[in-house]
């Protein structure tokens, strides 16, 4: 309210927009309101959120809470099973504590999944907004470039990029980001195209609002719900993609480990010690599932028109 008052004082021509501003702000509030409601009414979504927060906190506090040094080799205790005293989740092929390695691995697996999600969301939104609003040949060029990226089968381009750049956390992040941008950009573009023709945007244009004002005060706020939904569903896909790179040896280099590379290392000892591969895999699965459950709950809460498939 205070903000819209200030707007109408400083910009007399915008006084007609203050009601509209307030409407947009009401919409904002109702988005958070609906999200909160969907979380409170859906125990699965709530559990998913709690799990994600716990996993984040656990990874952050790995140095404090990890029971062992994740790099401490003890060949006497190699491949100890789950429940071994002192090694809750057993040990790996070098006798390193799996629980500690998972906690430390989270400090790699979490950023490699979450940073690409955020960056792809920001870059994809910017590209989609610009492309959809400007239209014409720049739009055509951008869309054809995105087509090319999307013409590569799922994750294959990320494999190519990461393989060329070599293993490393930054390269993995870059590779997963690149394959995430086109989906968001296209989604944003189609949202812009439909919103651009709506009365409130036409009215804003007619009353002389600047392009940036239209984009950031009118179109973007109305796309927030779509972005939230696809952001969280996209995070689930990024978890899988980044774990896949780790599994293929394109994550971090040993002795550091992300969850995907721990699974790959444990796979060799499947017959004697199945836990070395299955436990990291379970964590990857739970992590991706949590994002997807959250995304679906948000979709149901934010947009009844969005198809539930």
């Amino acid at each position, binding site marked *: 309210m205070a903000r819209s008052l200030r707007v109408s004082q400083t910009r007399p021509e915008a006084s007609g927009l203050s009601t509209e501003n307030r409407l947009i702000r009401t919409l904002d509030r109702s988005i958070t309101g609906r999200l909160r409601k969907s979380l409170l009414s859906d125990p699965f979504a709530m559990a998913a959120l709690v799990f994600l927060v716990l996993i984040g906190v656990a990874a952050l506090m790995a140095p404090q809470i990890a029971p062992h040094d994740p790099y401490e080799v003890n060949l006497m205790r190699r491949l100890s099973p789950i429940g071994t005293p002192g090694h809750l989740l057993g040990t790996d092929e070098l006798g390193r504590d799996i629980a500690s390695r998972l906690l430390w691995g989270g400090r790699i697996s979490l950023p490699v999944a979450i940073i690409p999600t955020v960056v792809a969301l920001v870059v994809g939104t910017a590209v989609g907004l610009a492309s959809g609003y400007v239209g014409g040949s720049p739009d055509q060029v951008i869309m*054809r*470039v995105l*087509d*090319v*990226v999307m*013409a*590569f*089968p*799922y*994750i*294959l*381009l990320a*494999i*190519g*990029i990461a*393989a*060329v*750049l*070599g293993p490393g956390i930054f390269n993995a992040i870059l590779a997963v980001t690149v394959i995430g941008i086109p989906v968001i950009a296209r989604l944003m573009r189609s949202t812009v195209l439909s919103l651009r023709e709506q009365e409130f945007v036409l009215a804003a244009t007619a009353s002389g609002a600047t392009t940036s004002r239209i984009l950031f005060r009118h179109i973007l706020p109305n796309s927030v719900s779509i972005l939230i939904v696809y952001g969280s569903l996209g995070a*689930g*896909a990024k*978890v*899988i993609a980044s*774990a*896949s790179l780790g*599994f*293929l*040896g*394109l994550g971090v280099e040993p002795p550091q480990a992300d969850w*995907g590379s721990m*699974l*790959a290392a444990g*796979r060799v000892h*499947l*017959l004697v010690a*199945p836990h070395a*591969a*299955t436990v990291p*895999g*379970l964590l*990857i*699965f739970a992590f*991706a*599932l949590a*994002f*997807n*459950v959250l995304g*679906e709950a948000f979709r149901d809460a934010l947009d009844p028109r969005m*198809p*539930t*498939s």
Partner: protein
Amino acid sequence: MRRYVAVRILSTLPVLVGISVLVFALVKAVPGDPASALLGPEATPQDVAMLRDALGLEKPLPMQYALWLKKALAADLGRSIQKRVPVTDLLFSRLRNTVMLTVTAMAFALALGLPAGVLAARRAGSALDRATMVVALFGNSMPVFWLGILLILVFSVHLGWFPTGGTASLREGPSFGNTLRHLILPSLALGLVTVGGLARLTRSAMLEIVGQDYIRTARAKGLSQYRTIWYHALKNAAVPIVTIVGAQFGFLLGGAVLTETVFGWTGIGLLIYEGIATRDLPVVLGGVLFVALAFVIVNLVTDLMYGYLDPRIRYG
């Protein structure tokens, strides 16, 4: 129809050019000088310079791209650094296995996903519908390499029904049954992570169709539920379903790299993995290019099938 086919084929050209530019960019992004890599550490700077010249590395980039493209069109993607044979020979020798894996996986996914999607749409909100949703959610969240490991543990290690990996047991010699036993688990793993998504997309395509006027008419004139759904609705849902199948092939082709790695299934995916492990980048990039081209062809074929399935598209 001929015009539709021609237009559709021509329209894939820009995508093909784009893919080739992107892969060429990756080739150029490989760190280190290819000439010094080929000649080894004892080479004099003069030798390196001569080879660079001979390889065309001193030419401007667009020129280098043109040379690379010309070679690629003649099926020359360079030589494997490790195996010292042309990359395309390796790719073609592995092609059969990858096609077998992805097609069987798609067959599994279709056999389970299509009926599940149709039934879920028919009884939207029912237990079956919700079960389909849960399966789809799990499939979307399940890394295929982890599912593969679980299948190996259950069906190979504990039950002993299937071999733990490989393409065929050497003891038995090549036979259909031998290959089939090795094929089932990997294609099941790859198919199962796809089936949920396929079912949900089928469901929403069906729901869209079921809302149409002609379905109401079919019901109104007294056709049985069975005939309405399986004849009228499913036929009209064919176009979106074909689209879905085409798109899912991309997912399968990417997932094949991971699945083949877990099961030691000697296809193109395993070749790419071996290339990554030994830093044999010509093999990796050749494989990426090859699989991307395969996906473009699959998409082209699905598009051509629309024209066949739905005459309105042909003339539109």
